[in-house]
């Protein structure tokens, strides 16, 4: 029973963690992309289309990643090259993504999808309890863990990561030091797009293997909130994603179990918990400020 609940929680948390870690990198480079929901849904439709047309869910995952990355390039071009307002462009990207994905996916509605099969580690997967949870998952789960570890290393242990954080904190100084601000930001935006696309692929190939319009149902917005919740730290994104996923699943179990708590209250819980944790984290203003990218959302035009 506990194992079954944990498995459901992993499935629910994985897309949140993946999309949030991508957005974390984008924001660490100083770009605020509110289009996560739009990139995620584009990833979902591209992944489903790729999987359906090639017959291989793995290629579908690749299509999802590429779909998300290409779509984010549009955001990059508008905000970085044409220097449009990032907030407005991000919102437009979400609306465009929801509409465009519906158009692309029109012919896929109602077709049962092929589920991405788990990768089974021999021997390890036979360990009771731990085995099925950690060693019998699909590739998106392993990628989510790898992304957390990789991004954490990149941001705080690598030279390029240090440069990227410098851009996010003060793009003027970084530019003066000879770091290519625009190019780095393009890459960061595309990384965010690729992650959102991967999260979308998880939705349409693992979570619920099918395509329906608006199937992301607000998960992109939750991922955005998670980045702030995590105060731009990768492992906190991981923890936040799982707290959010766990509360959401446990409230359903509480209902099925017949605990006499109003379901509206239980549905509200994940959001309420998020707010409480935000308050706890932000009570220390100094540590919050240290982690917040100072140039976040500000336009950058190289002076020469």
């Amino acid at each position, binding site marked *: 029973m506990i194992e079954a609940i944990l498995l459901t929680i992993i499935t629910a948390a994985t897309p949140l963690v993946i999309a949030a870690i991508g957005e974390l990198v984008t924001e660490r480079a100083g770009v605020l992309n509110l289009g996560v929901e739009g990139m995620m849904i584009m990833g979902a439709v591209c992944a489903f289309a790729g999987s359906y047309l090639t017959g291989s869910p793995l290629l579908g995952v690749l299509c999802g990643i590429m779909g998300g990355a290409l779509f984010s390039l549009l955001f990059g071009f508008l905000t970085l090259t044409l220097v449009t307002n990032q907030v407005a462009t991000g919102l437009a990207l979400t609306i465009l993504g929801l509409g465009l994905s519906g158009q692309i996916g029109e012919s896929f509605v*109602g077709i049962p999808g092929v589920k991405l099969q788990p990768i089974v580690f021999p021997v390890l997967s036979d360990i009771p309890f731990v085995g099925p949870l950690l060693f019998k998952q699909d590739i998106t789960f392993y990628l989510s863990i790898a992304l957390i570890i990789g991004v954490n290393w990149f941001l705080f242990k690598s030279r390029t990561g240090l440069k990227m954080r410098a851009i996010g904190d003060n793009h003027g100084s970084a530019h003066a030091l000879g770091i290519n601000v625009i190019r780095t930001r393009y890459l960061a935006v595309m990384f965010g797009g690729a992650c959102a696309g991967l999260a979308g692929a998880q939705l349409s190939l693992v979570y619920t293997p099918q395509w329906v*319009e608006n199937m992301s149902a607000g998960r992109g917005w939750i991922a955005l909130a998670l980045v702030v919740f995590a105060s731009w730290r990768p492992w906190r994104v991981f923890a936040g994603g799982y707290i959010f996923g766990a509360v*959401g699943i446990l409230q359903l*179990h509480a*209902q099925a179990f017949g605990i006499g708590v*109003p379901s509206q209250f239980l549905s509200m819980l994940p959001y309420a918990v998020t707010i409480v944790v935000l308050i706890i984290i932000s009570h220390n203003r100094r540590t919050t400020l240290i982690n917040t990218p100072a140039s976040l959302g500000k336009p950058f035009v190289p002076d020469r």
Partner: protein
Amino acid sequence: MKKLIIALAATAAALGGLSSGAQAQEKTKVCFVYVGTKTDGGWTQAHDIGRQELQKAFADKIETPYLESVPEGPDAERAIERMARSGCAMIFTTSFGFMDATVKVAEKFPKVKFEHATGFKAGPNLATYNSRFYEGRYIQGQIAAKMSKKGVAGYIASFPIPEVVMGINAFELGAKSVNPNFKLKVVWANTWFDPGKEADAAKALIDQGVDILTQHTDTTAPMQVAAERGIMAFGQASDMIAAGPKTQLTAIVDTWGAYYIKRTKALLDGTWKSEQIWDGLKDGILTMAPYTNMPDDVKAMAEETEAKIKSGELHPFTGPINKQDGSPWLKAGEKADDGTLLGMNFYVEGVDDKLPK
């Protein structure tokens, strides 16, 4: 420059008016306002299939323009008014949340006929229509009680409105007519449409030991989960057999086409009048998807119940029925009146859930 633009706009408007006027003389416009997209796989798709049947039935006499994804609220009023201005003779607004907007626009356009789905406010030029979905739920409950080994079914519900509560009660009553000890676990997803959350709710119910699943939400995600876990399930609004070829027992299928054709014929004949219609299985406004994946005796029972409901011999809400707390509601042989059903805010005995208030 400004004058030029105004002149151009006026010309365009005049041309637009002319062309639509010319069309109106040839073909009557019967318009539709949808809350979702026409390919949502559930509610709106069922309405759009009805629209297509209507268009086919009166191929050269009418056109059937439609607006998709109209949000409920103030925008709905604008959208409906735009339809009314564009020369529609009759407008179907197909969501409960369009009710007040439809009432307002209907008052402004007394010559246009309005038809609002699932609402309860009518007017001289505003009719309402609804479907007795609970008849199908009763049949599902009977099948569930026959097919379930554990005697517990799971119900994924959307919002605690009378329509949904009525469905839960009808399901439980059907099940109890076969197995008096049948239990029903209810999980409120608090959404009509979120595949992920619907799937999570399905998994939670299955993990807690139900072996039959039914849903009052819009996507096929619960059906997929049921198929994966090897239990049986019922479809909702559309035939969901594609999502669970070996899983779906039957589904309640909304078939609005016959109603749309009937009302359009009345409009063209000049015999249309405002009515409050609540049709059921016998009128063909809902149908049961083929009874599949069950033994012949269960199928025979389901077909018999369906026939009895159609003939009027059986009303799912016939006493003796107790409320959840055991207090009596209907005396033996007494039938629930439509008003009570449409405002239903209590469970019947046997539902294992606390109704959200």
